[in-house]
């Protein structure tokens, strides 16, 4: 997996922008003389996901990471920019499927599990006869570690981890080569989280899947991904190989994120913390959006938006002050 950078990209995203209109209703705007208001949820981001690899997007709530997942799967229309999937095994563009965060909300409680998993097969007419559909459903249930008889049950008869297995089986029904996983384990307990993460890794090896993984949990991200992109207020501030990013974070925000993760092996119990919170995306700060919280900010940071620069080690970083370390340093 170390050579993932040389692999062909499965997904290329260029200059992606998503703006949401959050203006007050028309009448309020006229009476209260309020201007229209927009939120730049995703602001000019570029990234590629290597085929068979896993790119994770991390960031705090409101940074736009889930919006990226929805843009990639077509649940939102992009305001600008392009999203391009490479041709898959059959020559047609890759098909993407999505696994959602909450397995309690994403499965219809009134449907039997076999019908939940069969829905994509029936909708997309991937199997001709109902016997073939049933056969495929049973195969999928076994793939995700459930038994074929579980298809007769309803979602409420399963625990959280088993439900997430059902949503993985449903996502795999149409034989996608690309899976977008939006916080797939954050609703699960740790012992169950390990089961689901192991299953996802095994499926990646067996089926050659490519993952775009969205999470706020740095330890999960480190376990799953080859590359990591850190988002802050709609922009990617740093993107690099997992090991490199953890060993030598270049952007001050990545450094802050890594410092603040509670560490079980080496707890920092008496640390002094810089205060400060994520500013409102309605009025992002000028220049580099991180400058009010940044310990090393200069005058230039509040005036000029930093461009994304590629460093020698393959990391891309959007910071005026990040410097290229000489090789071997």
């Amino acid at each position: 997996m170390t050579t993932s950078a040389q692999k062909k990209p499965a997904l290329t995203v260029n200059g992606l922008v998503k703006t949401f209109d959050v203006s007050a209703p028309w009448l309020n705007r006229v009476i209260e003389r309020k201007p229209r208001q927009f939120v730049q949820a995703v602001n000019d981001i570029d990234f590629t996901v290597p085929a068979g690899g896993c790119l994770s997007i991390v960031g705090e709530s409101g940074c736009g990471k889930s919006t990226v997942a929805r843009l990639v799967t077509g649940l939102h229309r992009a305001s600008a920019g392009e999203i391009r999937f490479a041709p898959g095994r059959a020559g047609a563009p890759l098909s993407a499927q999505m696994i959602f965060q909450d397995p309690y909300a994403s499965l219809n409680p009134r449907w039997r599990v076999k019908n939940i998993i069969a829905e994509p097969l029936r909708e997309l007419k991937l199997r001709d006869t109902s016997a073939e559909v049933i056969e495929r459903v049973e195969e999928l249930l076994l793939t995700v570690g459930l038994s074929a008889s579980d298809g007769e049950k309803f979602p409420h008869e399963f625990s959280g981890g088993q439900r997430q297995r059902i949503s993985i089986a449903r996502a795999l029904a149409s034989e996608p080569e690309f899976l977008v996983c939006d916080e797939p384990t954050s609703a699960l307990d740790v012992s169950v989280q390990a089961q689901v993460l192991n299953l996802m890794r095994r499926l990646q090896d067996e089926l050659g899947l490519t993952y775009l993984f969205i999470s706020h949990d740095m330890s999960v991200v480190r376990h799953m991904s080859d590359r990591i992109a850190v988002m802050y207020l709609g922009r990617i501030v740093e993107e690099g190989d997992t090991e490199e990013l953890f060993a030598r974070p270049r952007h001050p925000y990545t450094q802050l994120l890594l410092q603040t993760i509670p560490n079980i092996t080496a707890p920092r119990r008496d640390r002094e913390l810089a205060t400060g919170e994520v500013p409102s995306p309605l009025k992002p700060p000028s220049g580099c959006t991180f400058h009010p919280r940044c310990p090393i900010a200069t005058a230039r940071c509040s005036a000029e938006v930093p461009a994304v620069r590629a460093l020698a080690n393959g990391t891309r970083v959007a910071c005026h002050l990040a410097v290229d370390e000489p090789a071997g340093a």
Partner: protein
Amino acid sequence: MGEAEKAVIDVRNLKVEFPGRRGTVTPLSDISLSIRAGEILGVVGESGAGKSMTGLAIQGLLERPGRISGGEIWLGDRRIDTLDDRAMEQIRGREIGAIFQDPLTSLNPLFTVGSQLTETIRLHLSMGKVEARARAVQLLRDVGIPAPEERIDHYPHQFSGGMRQRVVIALALSASPKLIIADEPTTALDVSIQAQIISLLRRLCKEKQTAVMLVTHDMGVIAEAADRVAVMYAGRLIEIGPVEQVLHAPRHPYTQGLMASIPSLGARVVKLNQIDGSMPRLDAIPAGCAFNPRCVYAGSRCLRDRPELIPVGDGASACWLNAGGTA
């Protein structure tokens, strides 16, 4: 427990039952724990293990028809599990403070932060308006809210998530309680804010010598905040001890599996250690040790007899492996 006389809260063999149409379920049985002044006890477990319910039972907030059917709860020298609702109202807020998970729902959106704080202060301490307001400003300053003189007249929606949780902490502290029960206080917050709240809780606990019961599912939070840890599984306490021992040398197979299943920030492994299966439902708890269907060490004794907490090292663990000999 030898230092029981110094304990702020002492729970002895607590048992909670919910009678229902299809029989009685027992979400908590045989819980014994105590917390001293200035100590943070972390309570961990999976969802449904009974950790929040332990907190609710101590506060007398069990929803009917749930009731305490056995054991005793002592707050200092006073037994509180037998008190009626009115007496418990005097204790909640005055002697036991509470911090809940979601700061947005635990504050009233229609009143300013200041009026909610002064109301609580005046309810529990005999203070005049001016005096109570001064105390409210001081509390906001203590929890690290900048410009408290101005912020006191703001409404909850004018605060961010982290600041709102600080206000909730100020509210819990308003009558200088002896015990604070914090139920998942950082779960709704982002990591960089979570770290701020943890260090704030820790500082206040040590400064004001308050006993804190910190309920969470996040082992990282426990590692950074707690002095001692209690691990719960299927309504029982299965391991309790100092944080270093429980996290780094756990004696119960469940705690061992739990610690091994957390992805590490240090080294990367190909496959995470996983505990197969899931926690049993409360109406289908197996005989013997409740963990036996998932346990790799389970022997014939584990299927038959339920282990009690057995002292090991500086703590105690409910597993036959620690009783000497084999399971």
